[in-house]
């Protein structure tokens, strides 16, 4: 009978493990997209049949109209886009109940519309900045969660997208 050589303890070589892990790591590194989505957030009004008609006083509305050539009318007066934020901020300081209504034509360029919404956001940001400084003595970007809620309650963003015709 042949005498079998006694085997040494069977082990799996672990040296290659790191290489396998590296390969997987490289795969996930390549497919991961770190870029974040940025944009202007807005909440649309609910569908017409659900929403009750709310009567708003005429003096509590600021009408912004953007026409097909990209000209902007604020309450019937022609205004250049970069002026909107300052004017609206002043109007809201005078009347905190103000609702800003944005109306566009079907042929209005999209980028003018975005610039307009951007200006409104800027106006609200300016007011919130002021509120944060006056009431908490800090910058708006440094406020805590509770303070942010309070600011949001004090200065809500009242942007209304007008019903298209």
């Amino acid at each position, binding site marked *: 009978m042949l005498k079998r050589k006694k085997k040494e303890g069977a082990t799996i070589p*672990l040296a290659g*493990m*790191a290489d396998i*892990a*590296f390969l*997987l*790591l490289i795969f*996930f*590194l390549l*497919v*991961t*997209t770190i870029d*974040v*989505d*940025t*944009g*202007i*957030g*807005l*909440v*649309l*009004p*609910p*569908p*017409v049949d659900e929403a009750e008609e709310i009567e708003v006083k005429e003096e509590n509305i600021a009408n912004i109209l*953007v026409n097909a050539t990209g000209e902007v009318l604020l309450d019937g007066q022609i205004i250049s886009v970069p002026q909107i934020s300052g004017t609206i901020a002043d109007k809201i300081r005078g009347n905190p109940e103000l609702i800003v209504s944005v109306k*566009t*034509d*079907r*042929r*209005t*360029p*999209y*980028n003018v*519309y*975005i*610039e307009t*919404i*951007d200006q409104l*956001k*800027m106006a609200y*940001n300016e007011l919130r900045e002021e509120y944060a400084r006056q009431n908490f003595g800090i910058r708006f970007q440094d406020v805590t969660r509770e303070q942010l809620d309070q600011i949001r309650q004090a200065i809500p963003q009242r942007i209304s*997208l007008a019903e*298209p015709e």
Partner: protein
Amino acid sequence: MKFRKKQATTKQEIPTASLPDIIFMLLIFFMLTTVLREFDVQVEYTLPEAYMIERIDNKRLISYIWVGRDGRIQIDDNIVRVDDISAIMYQKRVEIPNLIVSMRIDQYSEMGVVTDIQQQLREADALRINYSSLHRL
């Protein structure tokens, strides 16, 4: 007198036994942060620019609508008609109740198509939207 240079008795190698563990930890991090589903965008668009942009933290809540320069609308991997948007979006909202619809619209589009999409979204009750735009410097 004979001086002998002092020599450390410890080994001079860096222990590499835990290297796979470190790599695995990195691997797990990247596996968790990866969103594998990427879309094949078939429309051509350039985003508008704005100052007051916010970032969306939770990428998993987002659903995209692309609108190209030629006015074609893409959702997921398909080019769709405007009238179909509400049905598709309703389906998505059932799956993700706090859905955010990110609209990637070409900056030279006309508002007509945007308004139509918004009307469809309102019908589908997908009310949280985001006009995707780049930071203006």
